[in-house]
């Protein structure tokens, strides 16, 4: 959470075109900030295994394709995890 917020906090003004998906939104942020892009995406452009993305509190791994579309007011949470119990 904090690490990603630190990368982006208050410095990106990024307009999301209507109908964009969560992935497109993340790619847009990655293009705007290289450090963020490297932290979130691996060299094959896949989301890194320790990076968790939630849309309105739900992990995107459980969203259908229609649910991946962004609408006004949606909240995207990004946090990393490299641990367990």
């Amino acid at each position: 959470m904090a690490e990603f917020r630190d990368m982006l906090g208050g410095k990106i003004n990024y307009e999301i075109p209507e109908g964009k998906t969560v992935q497109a939104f993340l790619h847009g942020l990655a293009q705007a900030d290289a450090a963020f892009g490297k932290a979130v995406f691996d060299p094959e452009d896949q989301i890194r295994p320790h990076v968790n993305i939630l849309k309105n509190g739900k992990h995107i791994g459980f969203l259908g394709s229609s649910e991946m579309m962004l609408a006004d007011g949606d909240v995207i949470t990004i946090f990393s995890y490299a641990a367990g119990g």
Partner: protein
Amino acid sequence: MYGYHKKMLRIDLSNRKIEIETLDERDLRKYIGGLGMGLKILLEETGVGTKPFDPDNILTAVMGPCTATGVPTTGRHHLVSRSPQTGLFGGANVGGSWAVGCKQAGFDGIAVKGKADAPVYIWIYNGKAEIRDALPIWGKDSYEAAAWLKKETSEKATAAVIGPAGERMAGIAGIPHIGSIVRMAARTGLGAVMGSKNLKAMVVHGDGEVSIAKPAELKEYISALMPHIRKSTEGFTKYGTSGGLVNYEKIGNFPLKNWRQGRWSGVEKINGVTMHDTILSGRKACKSCPIACGRHIKVTEGAYAPMDCEGPEYETLGTLGGLCLIDDLPAISKANELCNRYGMDTISAGGVIAFAMEAFEKGIITKKDTDGLELVWGSATALVEMVHKMGKGEGIGKLMTEGSKKMAEALGNNAIEFAIQVKGLEPSAHDPRRFFSQALSYATEARGACHNASWSHPYELAMTMPEIGITEPQNPYQIEGKEVLTCKMQDLMSVMDAMILCRFSQVGKAVNVTNHVDFLNMITDWGMDIPEYMKAGERLTNMKRLFNVRHGASRKDDFLPYRFMTLKRTGEGLSNQLPPMGELLSNYYAYRGWSEEGIPTAEKLKDLGLDEFIQK
């Protein structure tokens, strides 16, 4: 002396003798505390003939120099004994409020041997200790017993108190610690060691302080570091240890169906984010911890209501949940609470229930054996009922609490093929096929399949620790250099178990090794550098190994279950790699300076200052 009281409480229950041993500063610098001091006592004072339930077996609970000094995540202690579950080195690290209570009572640790002639508890407070009658609470669950003990001693007290599983010396019995928070010294059956000694509880409270060499400097250092720790661990605070569970399932790290299945949609219902959105009612922290990964839950409706108690953490969700394909969060929470009450390790409990479910599926056990219970995958009813049977030692539940290895041996029919354990200890919820350092660590750790022995898989995922040469996350399937990563992390974990520092202080690089040494030096004024600190860790890893070698263990015991070495999982996005254990082990022994059979060499022991343990 700073950081320590130099006092070890020595108790012999056979003759009810209490003594205070004065500790030598040279020993404290060499072994640091916690795991280190426990190992020193275990190696020096038990022998080849000392069986786990012999009165001569010793149980130690030792804090570290940082405990009760305000250093973050150090409100913990390490317990050591010969394990009844594995017959080898037994150890468990636990947080909560016991460690700070005992250190503030004026002791660096406690070593208990002997066997009382009737149930007793030990009350430790402000420089004193008493052995008291525990007959009124013998047979009570840990929560009920702790409530009674607090009334008898102090409402501020913390009790390390066994439940019925420990009393009847069940192999997977842990030691619940109940004070300001409930925590369990779960692994390797140390609750059964207490039971064998007729020791129901060790209760502590203290009001004293620990002397610190540079108190103002330490306070300022901690204040400066604290915002970084809070930020780095923010995800843990919000979602607990299971916030990343969904990703772990996605990448093949989460255990499913007794380690047979590749993917499972059930994780949607049992992960930390779901818990946060449904039953979470509060967060709980061990003493001196800003992270507060502990969950408190409230369930007000459904089959398992009412519940208002500690919630399950990641490993428990993996073992009582994923391994048994249980996607009912309240049911897992109930099973977790019952394990705490009966005093059983949730990791081994989940592992052995999954094993029994597979035995049921294969017809090796039937409803006749389970008293009519349909022990099928995904049955929440079966899970909760089986935990009751295990806790009470009823029917097949009694055999199950000896662990999956002993149960498989009793069942025959090649059941050992699917008893997933190393040295008799069930693995935690991390798949060694996904991270080869995890495979190597499960195989080589003295206490058995334990992820905490190396805590290395995050360093194959995203993390680095440049001070000890881990400058880039390592490819999880890479063979070359895997032994280096595993050994370095094992040694770091060993010294952290002596210091004592929680594993989660590493989350998000919250605390690094430079911080460790700075803490130690500001407290003790020793001027220790990172090489000396890491060498202490290597010494302790070797001492654990030496204890196992003494009891007949060698390379033959450093195995992985066949399933991990032969079964490729299928499912979207999963790798089909399997760990090549022969090569990994040979590289590991060579790097360690051990023989090809996995025995530490005389040269290595001399190098580590362990000459007295060289076998003649």
